[in-house]
């Protein structure tokens, strides 16, 4: 069995690698039980980096107003308190 001269005669047949062709191949495979078995990512949302808890007691109307404002802005009460803190720091620094 000698060398690369023999191998130079070997050629690949042209193949379609378009998205449509891959989809067709997937459909044919799935019909015979050759389904997607690639490992899935862990389901659910990632844990929040906000791990510290505050437990302030405030008057009910203040608590209700904070909750309503956070809901209105589409953020959590924790995020609203963070924004309030940033505002407070900006004011005290100037």
């Amino acid at each position, binding site marked *: 069995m000698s060398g690369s001269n*023999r191998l130079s005669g070997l050629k690949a047949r042209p*193949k379609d690698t378009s998205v449509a062709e891959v989809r067709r*191949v997937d459909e044919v*495979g799935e019909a015979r039980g050759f*389904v997607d078995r690639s490992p899935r990512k862990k389901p659910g949302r990632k844990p929040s980096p906000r791990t510290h808890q505050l437990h302030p007691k405030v008057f009910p109307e203040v608590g209700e107003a904070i909750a309503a404002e956070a809901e209105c802005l589409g953020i959590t009460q924790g995020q609203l308190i963070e924004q309030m803190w940033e505002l407070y720091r900006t004011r005290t620094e100037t």
Partner: protein
Amino acid sequence: MPVIVMASPKGGVGKSTCAAILASEFARMGANITVLDCDPNRSLSRWASHGLPKGVTLHGDIGRAEIVPTIRAADGDGKIVIVDLEGVASQLVSRAISQADLVIVPMQATALDAEIGSEALALVREEEEALGREIRHAVVLTKTSAAVKSRVQKELEEQLRSAGIDLIEPSLVARAAFSEIFAYGGDLTSMMNDPEMRTGGKVDKALENAHGFTEAVYERLK
């Protein structure tokens, strides 16, 4: 250059062994080989970790999303591409088959291997029909007896031939050297020439068997 895909939804039939033998032997003939290890057991990556034969490069951890572009990229480099697939029925397998110039379905001469291996053969035929082009495919019997051909093997060969299935001959005989290549790395020639590498069997007979198998595969790629 051609793309050779080892496919069978059954594990332990000899896909990785066939891939390692073909990669080593074609490399010895002077070809540049790219081996794609798509098997989660990483048999070929373990083989590579002990040293690959000259002319062979290996890419591991290739999944369903990467298989088509990886084959296309390697094919374009003018190399023979050998794909070792996982032993399950998956989209990764069906996608790899669609990119093959030759699909080899290894099976041991048992009813179970034949039944499960026939799923791969059926899939190839259905892909041929859906894509409107021929995907050449063949069966090789593996781990056969060196001494005698069993009744089951004779019957299976007869059944495959009567079903019009291309049967690669010679079959791959159960040789210690074929399995120990994964422990030593390299190829059978280096195993035969290195006194440090000890196998329980006849490496020269394994090498002769590997030559014959590779020649038979070569004839199907012309």
